[in-house]
C-alpha cells in the first residue's frame, strides 16, 4: 500500500489506533511492567505521525473529510473531519497525552497495574480523538459516551478506594446523563437539518435558528456541554473526580475530558450562537461557574482540590467568552483553551510530584518545599503565575483579551454593566488562590509532620513539566512566533469564516483591561494577605454547602420514589392485576366512546319485546346475581349456575336455534354432575376474605363492565351486516342432503374439524382416566355442621325409577340421532343423552353394579367411534374423492317411510360413540375417585352395598 492510499484512511487511523494500542498495552504488561508505558507512548507518537502529513491542509484553509457508509438506513456514516479546530484539539490531546504518559510511567507505584492504566488511558485518548475528529454527529455522540465510560474507568482506577469509586460514579452519572441529552439534541438537530454531517449542519445556521425546535435543541446540547465541562449547576462532579491518580487528573482536567464540552461549544458556535437564549444560557452559566470556581478554589486545603475548582473557574471563563457570542470573544476563548491546557496540566503534574514525594496533598502540612525541591518550585511558580495572569506569561494574554471582551459586552444591554465588575472579582480570587498555591506550598515556614522526607523527583518526571512551562513562557513572551499560526487556524475552523482582526501583542498601551489586570493582582494579593479571617468566615458560613449532598439526595429521592411506585403497583396479587387490566379496558373504551361523535347504535329497528322474554331475562339476572352473592355456599351457587345455563338454552330456543338449545341442555346436565363430583372434595363453604372496600370496588367495576358489554353488543347488533348463514342455508340440501344446517355443517361441510374435535374429546377422556388411576384424595366425612354423609348411598326408589328411565332415554337418543340430519338433533346431542342415561345408572346403582351389567369397556367405545369416523373419510378417499367427501341417497324403509341415507350418518355414529364413551369414562372415573377416597378416609363406615 502506498503512502497516498494510506493517507485516505489517516483520520480514522489516528482515532482508532489508541483502541488497538489499548489491547496491546494490556497484553504487554504481562511481559514487563513498563512495557505497557512504552506501548502507550509509541502508539501516541504513531497517531501523531499519521496526523502529521495532514496538518498542512487546515493551514491551507481546507477541510479534510474522510467518510464511509456505516448504517445508511439511519443516516450514520463513519465520517471524520479535520479542520483547524479539530487539529488544535487533536494536537492538544496527543501532545499532552504523550507528556502525561511519560509522567505516569514514573508516577505509578509498583502496586498499581500498569497494563490496566495505560489500556484505559489509550481508550480514553482514542475516544477523545474520536470526538474532536468526527464529522458525523451521531458518531460524535458515540465517542462522547465512550469518553464518559473510559473516564469512569480512569477515575475509579484505584478501585479499592471508596472515594475513587464514588467520585467515578458521580462523574459517570452526570456526564453520561449529559451525553444522552446531547444525543437527543443531535437527533433533533439532524431532524431539522436533514443530515447528521457537520458540513451540512454548519451550513444551516439560519435554518436552525429560525426553527421552532431551536430552543429545545440548544438546551439539550448545552446539557451535554455543561455536564461534561463541569459548568454550574453540574460542576460538583469535578472536585470529586480528584480521587483519580494525578496523571489522570492532569490529562482529564486540562486538555481533554472537560474540554470536550468546550470543544462542542466551539463546534456549534457558528450555528447556535447569536441568539438571546444562547447569550443568557451560555453566558449565565459561564459567569456563575467562573465566580463559584474562583471563590471555592481559595478555600481548598487539598492541592488538587484547589486546582479542581480553579479548573471549573477557568472553564467558566471560556464558556462565558463563548456566551458573549462575538467573533473576537471566540478568538479569546480558543486562545485561553490552549493556555489553560498548558499551565493546568503542568500544575497538576507538580501537585502529583509533591504528593508522590511527600505523601500528602494537604497545603496546611506541606510548607516551605522550596529548599527541598527547588527545580519543581520554580516550575510551579511560573505555571501558577500564568494561571493568575501575570504579564509575560501566556495566561496574561488571554486574560487581557477576556477583560477586553467583558468590557465590550458591558455595552450590549442595560443589564450587562455589571459583567466587568464580576469578572474582576473572579480574577481577584484567581490571583489569591494562585498565590496560595505558591506561598503555602513552597514558602510559609517548614513542613508539618510529613509521611516522607521530600526531595526532587526522578528527572524524567519533571521533563513533561519543564516542556509545558517553557511553552507557557514562550507563548507569553513571543506569541506571534509560537502560538499565532495554530490559533489562527483553529479560529478559522471554529468560525468557519476568515477570522477577524485581532492582535497578539503583549503591550497594548495603558488601557482599561490592563488596569483591570493590575487591580486584580493587587486586590488578589490583599485577599491572600487577609486570608485567615476569610477562612474563618468561610468555614462557619459556606463550607458545609456541598452539591454532593444534593446529588446524593436526588439519588436517594429517585430510589424512594421507585420504592413507593413499586409498592403501589408491584403487589404480586392476581386480583390487583385483573382489576388493572379490566379497569384500563373500561377507561380506554370510555375514552373512545367519549371522543368520537358518531352514534353508538346503528339504524336497525329493535325487535319487539314480549312478556315471557322479559320474565326469562329477569330470572336470568336474578340467578346470576344469586350465583355471585351465594358463591360462598358452593352447592347453592352451583345450582344457581345450573339455572343460568338452563335459561341460556331457553334463549337459544327463543332465537330459533333448537340444536344449540339441546346441546346446551345436555352439556349443562353433564357439567353440573361433573362439578358436583369435584365439589365433593372441597369444603362446602369458602371463607370470607375480601374487605368491604374491595367488594364495593369490584361491584362498580363489574357493573360498569356489564353495561359496557351490553352497549357494545347493542352497537354491533343494531347495525346491518351480511351473515354467512345464507350460504349454508342455500347449500345444505343440495350439498349435504340434510335440512338441519347445523348438523350438516358438523358432519359434512366441516367434517374434518369435527373429526379433530372428537379426537380431542377422546384423548381428554382417556387422559382423565389415566390421571385418576389409583389417585386418592382426602375427602371430608361430614359436612360443615358435623353431620355424617348419608349412608344409604343408593335409595331404592331412585334405583327403580332410573332402571325404567334407561330404555326410554336410549330410545330418545336413537331418535334424536336418526333425525339429526334434517331436524334438530344429531350424533353429538344423542351421545350426550345416552351418556346421561348411563351416568344416571351409575349414580343410582353404584359403579360396581352398573359395571357388572354393562359388559363393554368404554375404551372400546371411544376407539370404535374414532375408527368409524375416520373410516368414513377413508372410504371416500378410496373411491377417488378427497377425504371425508359425502354422498347421500333416499331409501324407503318399511315402517318409517322415505328416509334419507347420507354417508355422513356413519360419521355421525362415530361422533355419537366417542361422546358417549368419553363422557361416561371421565365421569365414572371421577365418581370412583370419591368412592375410593371415602373408604380410605372413613374406615369406620359400614361396608357399602354392592361395592
Amino acid at each position, binding site marked *: 500500500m502506498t503512502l497516498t492510499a494510506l493517507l485516505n484512511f489517516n483520520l480514522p487511523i489516528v482515532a482508532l489506533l489508541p483502541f488497538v494500542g489499548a489491547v496491546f498495552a494490556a497484553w504487554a504488561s504481562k511481559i514487563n511492567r513498563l512495557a505497557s508505558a512504552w506501548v502507550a507512548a509509541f502508539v501516541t507518537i504513531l497517531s501523531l505521525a499519521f496526523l502529521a502529513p495532514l496538518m498542512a491542509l487546515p493551514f491551507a484553509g481546507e477541510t479534510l473529510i474522510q467518510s464511509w457508509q456505516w448504517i445508511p438506513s439511519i443516516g450514520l456514516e463513519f465520517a471524520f473531519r479535520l479542520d483547524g479546530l479539530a487539529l488544535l484539539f487533536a494536537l492538544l490531546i496527543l501532545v499532552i497525552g504523550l507528556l502525561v504518559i511519560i509522567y505516569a510511567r514514573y508516577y505509578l507505584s509498583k502496586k498499581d497495574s500498569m497494563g490496566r492504566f495505560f489500556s484505559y488511558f489509550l481508550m480514553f485518548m482514542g475516544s477523545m480523538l474520536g470526538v474532536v475528529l468526527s464529522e458525523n454527529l451521531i458518531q460524535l455522540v458515540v465517542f462522547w459516551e465512550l469518553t464518559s465510560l473510559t473516564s469512569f474507568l480512569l477515575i475509579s482506577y484505584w478501585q479499592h478506594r471508596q472515594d475513587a469509586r464514588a467520585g467515578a460514579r458521580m462523574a459517570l452519572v452526570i456526564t453520561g446523563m449529559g451525553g*444522552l441529552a446531547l444525543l437527543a439534541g443531535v437527533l433533533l438537530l439532524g431532524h431539522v437539518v436533514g443530515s447528521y454531517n457537520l458540513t451540512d449542519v454548519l451550513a444551516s445556521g439560519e435554518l436552525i435558528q429560525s426553527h421552532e425546535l431551536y430552543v429545545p435543541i440548544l438546551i439539550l446540547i448545552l446539557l451535554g456541554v455543561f455536564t461534561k465541562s463541569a459548568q454550574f449547576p453540574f460542576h460538583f462532579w469535578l472536585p470529586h473526580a480528584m480521587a483519580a491518580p494525578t496523571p489522570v487528573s492532569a490529562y482529564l482536567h486540562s486538555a481533554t475530558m472537560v474540554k470536550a464540552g468546550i470543544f462542542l461549544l466551539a463546534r456549534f458556535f457558528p450555528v447556535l450562537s447569536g441568539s438571546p437564549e444562547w447569550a443568557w444560557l451560555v453566558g449565565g452559566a459561564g459567569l456563575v461557574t467562573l465566580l463559584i470556581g474562583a471563590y471555592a478554589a481559595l478555600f481548598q486545603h487539598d492541592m488538587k482540590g484547589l486546582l479542581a475548582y480553579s479548573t471549573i473557574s477557568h472553564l467558566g471563563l471560556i464558556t462565558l467568552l463563548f456566551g458573549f457570542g462575538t467573533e473576537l470573544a471566540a478568538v479569546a476563548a480558543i486562545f485561553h483553551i490552549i493556555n489553560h491546557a498548558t499551565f493546568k496540566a503542568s500544575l497538576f503534574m507538580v501537585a502529583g510530584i509533591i504528593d508522590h514525594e511527600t505523601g500528602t496533598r494537604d497545603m496546611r502540612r506541606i510548607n516551605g518545599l522550596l529548599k527541598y525541591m527547588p527545580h519543581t518550585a520554580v516550575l510551579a511558580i511560573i505555571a501558577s503565575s500564568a494561571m493568575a495572569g501575570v504579564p509575560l506569561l501566556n495566561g496574561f494574554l488571554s486574560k487581557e483579551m477576556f477583560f477586553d471582551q467583558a468590557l465590550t459586552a458591558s455595552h450590549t444591554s442595560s443589564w450587562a454593566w455589571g459583567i466587568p465588575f464580576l469578572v474582576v472579582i473572579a480574577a481577584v480570587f484567581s490571583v489569591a488562590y494562585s498565590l496560595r498555591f505558591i506561598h503555602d506550598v513552597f514558602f510559609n515556614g517548614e513542613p508539618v509532620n510529613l509521611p516522607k522526607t521530600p526531595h526532587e523527583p526522578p528527572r524524567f518526571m519533571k521533563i513533561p513539566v519543564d516542556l509545558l512551562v517553557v511553552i507557557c513562557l514562550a507563548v507569553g513572551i513571543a506569541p506571534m512566533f509560537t502560538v499565532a499560526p495554530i490559533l489562527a487556524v483553529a479560529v478559522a475552523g471554529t468560525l468557519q469564516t476568515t477570522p477577524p482582526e485581532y492582535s497578539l501583542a503583549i503591550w497594548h498601551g495603558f488601557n482599561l483591561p490592563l488596569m483591570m489586570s493590575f487591580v486584580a493582582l493587587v486586590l488578589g494579593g490583599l485577599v491572600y494577605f487577609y486570608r485567615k479571617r476569610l477562612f474563618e468566615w468561610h468555614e462557619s458560613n459556606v463550607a458545609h454547602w456541598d452539591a454532593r449532598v444534593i446529588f446524593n439526595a436526588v439519588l436517594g429521592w429517585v430510589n424512594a420514589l421507585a420504592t413507593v411506585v413499586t409498592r403501589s403497583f408491584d403487589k404480586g396479587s392476581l386480583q390487583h392485576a385483573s382489576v388493572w387490566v379490566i379497569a384500563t379496558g373500561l377507561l380506554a373504551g370510555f375514552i373512545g366512546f367519549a371522543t368520537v361523535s358518531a352514534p353508538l347504535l346503528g339504524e336497525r329497528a329493535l325487535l319487539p319485546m314480549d312478556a315471557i322474554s322479559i320474565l326469562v331475562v329477569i330470572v336470568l339476572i336474578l340467578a346470576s346475581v344469586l350465583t355471585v352473592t351465594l358463591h360462598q355456599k358452593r352447592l347453592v351457587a352451583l345450582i344457581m349456575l345450573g339455572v343460568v345455563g338452563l335459561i341460556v338454552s331457553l334463549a337459544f330456543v327463543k332465537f330459533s336455534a333448537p340444536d344449540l338449545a339441546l346441546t346446551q341442555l345436555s352439556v349443562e346436565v353433564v357439567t353440573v354432575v361433573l362439578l358436583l363430583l369435584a365439589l365433593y372434595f372441597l369444603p362446602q363453604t369458602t371463607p370470607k376474605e375480601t374487605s368491604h372496600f374491595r367488594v364495593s370496588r369490584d361491584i362498580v367495576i363489574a357493573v360498569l363492565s356489564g353495561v359496557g358489554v351490553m352497549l357494545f353488543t347493542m352497537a354491533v347488533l343494531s347495525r346491518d351486516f351480511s351473515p354467512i348463514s345464507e350460504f349454508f342455508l342455500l347449500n345444505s340440501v343440495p350439498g349435504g342432503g340434510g335440512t338441519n344446517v347445523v348438523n350438516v355443517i358438523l358432519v359434512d361441510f366441516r367434517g374434518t374439524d369435527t373429526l379433530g374435535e372428537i379426537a380431542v374429546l377422546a384423548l381428554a377422556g382417556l387422559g382423565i382416566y389415566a390421571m385418576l388411576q389409583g389417585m386418592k384424595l382426602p375427602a371430608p366425612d361430614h359436612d360443615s355442621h358435623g353431620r355424617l354423609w348419608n349412608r344409604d348411598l343408593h335409595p331404592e326408589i331412585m334405583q327403580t325409577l332410573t332402571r325404567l328411565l334407561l330404555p326410554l332415554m336410549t330410545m330418545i337418543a336413537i331418535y334424536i340421532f336418526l333425525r339429526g340430519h334434517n331436524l334438530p338433533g344429531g350424533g353429538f346431542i344423542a351421545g350426550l343423552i345416552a351418556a346421561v342415561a348411563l351416568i344416571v345408572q351409575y349414580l343410582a346403582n353404584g359403579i360396581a353394579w352398573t359395571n357388572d351389567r354393562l359388559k363393554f369397556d368404554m375404551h372400546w367405545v371411544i376407539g370404535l367411534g374414532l375408527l368409524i369416523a375416520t373410516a368414513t373419510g377413508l372410504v371416500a378417499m378410496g373411491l377417488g374423492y378427497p377425504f371425508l367427501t359425502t354422498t347421500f341417497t333416499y331409501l324407503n324403509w318399511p315402517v318409517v317411510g322415505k328416509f334419507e341415507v347420507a354417508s355422513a350418518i356413519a360419521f355421525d355414529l362415530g361422533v355419537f360413540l366417542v361422546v358417549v364413551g368419553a363422557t361416561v369414562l371421565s365421569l365414572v372415573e371421577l365418581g370412583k375417585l370419591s368412592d375410593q377416597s371415602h373408604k380410605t378416609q372413613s374406615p369406620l363406615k359400614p361396608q357399602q352395598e354392592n361395592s
Partner: protein
Amino acid sequence: MNFITPDFMPVLPEIFVLTMACVVLIIDLYLKDENRGVIYLLVLATLVGAAGLTLFVHTPESVTTFNGTFIKDTMSDVLKVFIYLVSGVVFLYSRDYLIERKIFKGEYFALGLFAVLGMMVLVSANNMITIFLGLELMSLALYAMVAFQRDDKNAVEAAMKYFVLGAIASGLLLYGMSIIYGMTGTLDIAEIGTKVSEMPSDNIVLLFGVVFILVGLAFKLGAVPFHMWIPDVYHGAPTAVTLFIATAPKIAAFGMLMRLLVDGLGSLQAHWQEMLVALAVMSIIFGNVIAIAQTNIKRMLAYSTISHVGFLLLGIIAAGANGYSSAMFYIIVYTLMGLGGFGMIILMSRSGFEADELDDLKGLAKRSPWFASMMILIMLSMAGIPPLIGFFAKLAVLQAVIDAGYIWLAVLAVLFSVVGAYYYLRVVWYMVFEEPKETAPIKASFDVQVVMSINGLGMLALGLFPASLIAMCAAAFG
C-alpha cells in the same frame, strides 16, 4: 363438499416442527433417563432443520396459502429465523440447569417445540383465526412450562397468575376480533384492511374492537398497565423458562402486532397510535422507575423488559416503513440482550441455589472475569451505551419517532433511558466493585461458554457493524 388441496410448500417449516414435536413426545416414552440427551439434540436439530427449511422456502415476494389464512413474507421469515436462533440458545443455556433440578424431561422440550410452532404460526398468520390459533398454542405451552417444576410453590403460583391473566387477555383479544368480524364480515387480515379503510374512521364499534385488540396485544407484550404478570412470572418460573418467555415470544408478539394493527387495522392508525402513545409512555416511565427498586435481578430484568417494550411501541407509533423496521430491529436486539442477561443468571445458578438476587452478582469480575465482561457488555448494551448494539436499536427508534414528529416522546424516552442506565450500571457496579460473597468461579460446559461469549461479544460486534441486521429488518417493510 369438496375442498382444494392447499399449497403445502410455504408451510413446510411449520409442518416439520409439528412433526418433530410429536416425534419428540413419542421417542421420549421409550428413553431411559440417562439417554434424555437424545431429545435435546433432536430438538436442536429440529430448530436447525426448520431454519434450513425457512431459508429454503424463502421468496422475496409474499405467498399466501390455506385459503389466505397463512402468509409467508420477508417479515415472517426473518422473525422465524430469529425465533429458532433464540429458542435454540435458550435450550442450550437451560440444559445444565434442567439436569441439576431433575426436570430435564422430554415434555419440557416438546412443550418448547409446540411453543415455537405457535410463534411461527403467529408471525405467519393472515387470518384472525390463525392468529388466535398461534397465540393460544404458544401461550398454553408456556403456561405449562412455567408450572413445570410442579413442587415449587412460586412456580405454580406464577403459572396460575399467568394463566388467569392470560385467559382474560385472550378473552379480550377474542372479543375485539369478533367485533371487527361483526363489522367487516371477514376474518381475513387483508380483507379487513380494505373493508376498514372504506368505513368512516369514527365508527365507534370498530374503535371498541381496536381497544380490545390492543388490550390483548399489550398484555402479550407486557406494556403498562397490562404488565402485572411479567415480574411475577419471570420471578416465579424456573429461570430456564423465564429465559424462554422473556425472549422468543416477544418476537412473535411483535409479529402479531404488525399483522393485527398494521396490516388489518392500518387505516385506523390515528386511533391506535394515541392509545399506543399512552402505553409506551407508561411502560417507559414505570418500567424504568420500578426497576430501580428491585433487588431481585429477575424482577429487575422483568421491569427492564417492560421499558424495552415501551421503546418497541415507540417504533410502531412512528409508523411507516422506517418506524416498523426500527421496531423490528429493536425487538430482535432486545431478545439477543435478554438472552444474555437471563442466560447469565442461569449460569450462576447451581443445584438448589437460584442466583437471582443482585447480591449474588457481587464480585463476579473477580470470580469469573470473562463471564463478568460478557455480562458487562450485555448490561451496557441494554442501557443503550455506544458503541454496543443496544445503542443503535434505541437510535433507530428515536430517529423514526422524531421524523414522525413526536419530539416530546423522543425526549422523554431519552430522559428515562438515563434512569434505565442507572440500574444497568448498578449491576456492573456490583460485579466489579463489590467483594464477592463466594470465590468459586462459575462452572459451565464448553459449548455454553462458547455461546455465551458469542452472545456477549455479539453486542459489540453487531454494534460496530449493525448495517446488515438493519438492512434485513428494512427489507421486511421495503
